[in-house]
């Protein structure tokens, strides 16, 4: 049969149902009248008697017959749902919540964790790191010297590239701008297999020491900051004072490693004098047929060789290799899988809830269904009808859930909590919609199946009799309801406990002190980046900062002004190893690297870091004075456990540093956290800025008597007045910086907390439904008991006890489930064990309280029963 003809007939039959019916009627009645004229009356009567059957036979051959029966079921189901709008709305809302949350989180997990990166063959691209003592970072960074050794020994990768994310102060565009960018070796773009929109990438040899500077910019940045200049290729920009020629524009889809990165410049491999500085990462594409494990063996071999040649610098060295995607996604995997688990739990609760509601409603419809069954509907037909209804519900819930998911994703993208990697790849796409549909249909079948089969099993005769007598009906159904509610409560408890643990860790994290005792809102910091070409050495930069400090100090409202390259709670700038004069170290042993901020005298006063002993720096600790250093309390405790450290001397270690002078310890200050609130106060040694060969960039930090945020414009003006080319960025109060540093944990806590609240709400609805249903069923029995003298309180007590029994059983199951589930959370917790006793005590109490409350309402209704009316009922 011709498909097109069939489809057009199908369409016609479905859209013109009434006309098709009318035509059939007309055809048949004309046929009968003709027959009546030319045949015997008996024959005509017989034909007329069979006419409905004949019509049905004709309908069965029509295109779309099966579809029409389904549509009939759907229409019938829709009428049934419309007849009880409260039930329908509650069920759809519960499902929308479950499906919406699941789809949102699925979209995020897919977009962030699973969607391929926009680089062809992205699973073949790896990043290469350095792991050694004393740096002791699992995925630590390489030095250029390490890279050159790796490149020389490399056979596993097509090419070995090196890059470093960096911030560039760009001049030569519209106005001085501070831009995130990458410096990388010549094969960087070809390793990623990406093509520029205009111009070219790097040429081979452009990473040579004497190559001239080139830069490739992103399309977005070219449009926004370079006015989409069509003649951009060949123009010169100054990156940190180094002139670079623009050679290419990358399409906006390219933003390695993350969206804020707007330019890529060539790294010039100047042969290093020592193994450091570090800060570089390897990027490489595996040769065809080579596995990551093989590449790993090769790099580790190279690392062992480096270690043997440089025993002073490296201990336990290896060069870990990791897939690029894992690196870009970073440490959100555990959190996201936890979210995914949480939403599926929520979905299961929602489905169980709707199943309970359906079961309760099945009681109301018992007689209708029994009637249909006794009139000859097969149990298969009835199950199909009930399943159609539950699918109808779940698909409507799914549609509403998709709207919720769309809004949820839009909100998450706007908020971008905790700087989620790849959030730009998260969207509600066809895959997510397919997922939502699948989840809807699966839940629809799941929650519809139990009540449907329960109905299919009921014997019509007994249902009709039970209904007629108003006895205690549907034991099986009630047992099923109780099991579902228990499951719901148990799952809700798993979520409540998980959320409780996260809330407790978040609260504890919020109580952690950064080490700065000044009120956080009274401390304001801003990053200042003078143009390097203007300040070539410390003789030029130190006076500039001195003037900045003088002007800042003179600004009305400023109590203290200081500079520091590192700031709490997570803005560590540099860390280095050190040696203490006279310290006895085992041969080849090194003290671990510690934070080493470079600060001006009033830094500690600005932040309110207490002096433990000795003195702070003064203006006299300058280049003409003997070098001095201040150490943190924890460093003092660790290295001078029994002595007074004041007067002892230390210096940065490293073989090329033997001729640098030791610095005398003049003070010990309180501990400050520089690597996040969840890590310990840093071991640190501070050096005075006026004695140190200076880095160009630093932070100005001021303290005021009141809120300090308002000082920003005035300070900006003062710095601009000193040097209009200086880039000012990252203007934040300490309060904001503290908030930003815990944005990830806050996001996790809010999200899982939200899920837990939804779960509690759904569980409360579930238990309320079951108790209310059972009270409604037992109205007569309660009436009899009250007529026989039972008091209202004993009725309430009995009903609430029924709810509590369910809650207790759910709690026992839930605690077991939670013990298992929270173990998976332990890496997300701070200062709280996964088996935290407080959480595991409070969670069940909350659950039981909610259950008691939810059963109290129907219990009160039961106590209001008037025995006379109850007994006369039915």
């Amino acid at each position, binding site marked *: *049969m*011709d498909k097109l*003809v*069939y489809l057009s*007939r199908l369409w016609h039959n479905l859209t013109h149902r009434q006309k098709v019916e009318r*035509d059939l009627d*007309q*055809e*048949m*009645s*004309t*046929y009968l*009248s*003709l*027959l009546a*004229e030319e045949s015997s009356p008996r024959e005509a009567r017989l*034909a007329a008697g*069979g006419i409905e*059957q*004949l019509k049905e*036979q*004709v309908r*069965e*051959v*029509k*295109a779309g017959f099966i579809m029409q029966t389904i549509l009939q079921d759907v229409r019938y189901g829709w009428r049934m749902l419309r007849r009880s709008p409260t039930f329908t709305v509650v069920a759809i809302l519960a499902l929308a919540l479950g499906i919406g949350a699941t789809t949102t989180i699925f979209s995020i997990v897919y977009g962030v964790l699973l969607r391929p990166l926009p680089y062809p063959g992205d699973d073949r691209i790896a990043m290469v790191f350095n792991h050694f003592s004393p740096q002791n970072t699992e995925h630590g960074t390489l030095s250029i010297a390490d890279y050159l050794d790796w490149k020389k020994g490399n056979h596993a990768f097509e090419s070995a590239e090196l890059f470093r994310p960096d911030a560039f102060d760009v001049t030569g565009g519209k106005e001085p701008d501070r831009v995130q960018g990458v410096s990388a070796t010549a094969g960087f773009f070809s390793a990623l297999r990406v093509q520029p929109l205009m111009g070219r990438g790097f040429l081979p040899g452009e990473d040579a020491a004497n190559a001239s500077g080139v830069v490739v910019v992103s399309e977005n940045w070219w449009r926004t900051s370079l006015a989409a200049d069509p003649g951009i290729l060949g123009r010169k920009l100054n990156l940190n004072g180094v002139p670079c020629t623009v050679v290419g524009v990358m399409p906006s889809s390219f933003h390695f490693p993350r969206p804020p990165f707007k330019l890529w410049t060539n790294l010039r491999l100047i042969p290093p004098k020592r193994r450091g500085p570090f800060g570089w990462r390897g990027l490489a594409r595996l040769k065809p047929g080579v596995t990551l494990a093989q590449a790993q063996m090769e790099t580790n071999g190279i690392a062992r060789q480096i270690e043997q040649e440089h025993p002073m610098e490296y201990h336990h060295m290896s060069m870990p290799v990791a897939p690029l995607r894992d690196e870009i996604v970073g440490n959100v995997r555990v959190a996201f899988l936890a979210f995914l688990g949480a939403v599926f739990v929520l979905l299961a609760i929602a489905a169980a809830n709707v199943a309970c509601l359906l079961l309760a409603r099945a009681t109301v419809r018992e007689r209708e269904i029994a009637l249909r069954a006794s009139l000859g509907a097969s149990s298969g037909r009835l199950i199909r009808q009930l399943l159609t209804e539950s699918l109808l519900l779940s698909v409507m819930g799914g549609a509403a859930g998709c709207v919720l998911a769309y809004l949820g994703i839009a909100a998450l993208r706007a908020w971008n909590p905790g700087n989620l990697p790849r959030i730009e790849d998260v969207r509600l796409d066809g895959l997510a919609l397919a997922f939502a549909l699948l989840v809807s249909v699966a839940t629809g079948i799941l929650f519809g199946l139990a009540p449907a089969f329960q109905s299919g099993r009921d014997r019509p005769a007994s249902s009709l009799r039970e209904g007629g007598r108003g006895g205690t009906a549907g034991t099986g159904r009630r047992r099923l309801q109780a099991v579902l509610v228990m499951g719901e409560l148990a799952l809700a408890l798993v979520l409540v406990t998980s959320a409780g643990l996260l809330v407790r860790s978040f609260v504890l994290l919020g109580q952690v002190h950064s080490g700065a005792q000044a009120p956080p809102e009274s401390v304001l910091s801003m990053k200042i980046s003078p143009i390097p070409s203007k300040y070539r050495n410390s003789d030029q930069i130190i006076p500039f900062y001195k003037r900045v400090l003088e002007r800042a100090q003179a600004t009305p409202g400023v109590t203290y002004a200081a500079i520091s390259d590192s700031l709490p709670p997570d803005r560590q700038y540099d860390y280095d190893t050190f040696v203490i004069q006279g310290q006895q170290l085992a041969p080849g042993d090194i003290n671990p690297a510690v934070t080493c901020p470079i600060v001006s005298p009033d830094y500690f006063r600005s932040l309110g870091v207490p002096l433990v002993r000795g003195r702070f720096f003064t203006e006299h600790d300058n280049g003409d004075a003997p070098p001095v250093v201040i150490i943190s309390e924890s460093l003092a405790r660790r290295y001078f456990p029994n002595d007074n450290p004041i007067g002892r001397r230390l210096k940065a270690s490293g073989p090329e540093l033997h001729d640098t002078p030791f610095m005398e310890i003049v003070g010990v200050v309180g501990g400050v956290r520089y690597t996040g609130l969840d890590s310990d106060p840093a071991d640190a040694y501070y050096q005075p800025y006026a004695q140190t060969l200076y880095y160009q960039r630093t932070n100005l930090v001021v303290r005021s008597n009141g809120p300090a945020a308002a000082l920003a414009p005035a300070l900006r003006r003062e710095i601009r007045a000193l040097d209009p080319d200086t880039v000012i960025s990252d203007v934040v109060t300490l309060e904001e910086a503290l908030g930003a540093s815990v944005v990830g944990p806050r996001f996790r806590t809010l999200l899982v907390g939200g899920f837990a609240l939804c779960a509690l709400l759904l569980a409360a609805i579930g238990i309320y439904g079951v108790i209310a249903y059972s009270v409604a069923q037992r109205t007569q029995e309660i009436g009899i008991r009250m007529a026989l003298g039972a008091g209202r309180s004993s009725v309430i007590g009995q009903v609430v006890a029924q709810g509590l029994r369910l809650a207790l059983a759910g709690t026992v199951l839930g605690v077991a489930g939670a013990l298992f589930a929270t173990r998976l959370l332990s890496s997300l917790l701070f200062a709280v064990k996964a088996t935290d006793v407080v959480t595991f005590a409070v969670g069940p109490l909350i659950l039981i309280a909610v259950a008691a409350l939810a059963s109290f309402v129907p219990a009160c209704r039961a106590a209001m029963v008037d025995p006379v009316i109850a007994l006369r009922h039915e």
Partner: protein
Amino acid sequence: MSELAPKTTNLLQGTLDLLILRALSLEPLHGLGISRRIEQITRGTFQVKPGSLFPALHRMEEAGWLAPSWGESENNRKAKYYRLTAAGRRQAQTETEEWQRISLAIAAALQAT
């Protein structure tokens, strides 16, 4: 006398289709007219019952071989006439050839002994 029940073999169903297609090859007819025409052209051998005829007509209409056209019946009532479409004519041609091939083969088989 042969009755064509709704659930006949493919051969018989094919036969009914072919008979309907032949019956309509001259002019459009309504349901009862088709039944009369078949009786007439098979010299009374086939009396098609409505339970076979109408489902077959509608099935063939869905297949695009027949098209409805509404006209007036002998007793001045609105009646559904069926006419052959181009696809129906092609189908008649194919089925006729097929039938002739089969009947020749059956005839040959019967004579073979």
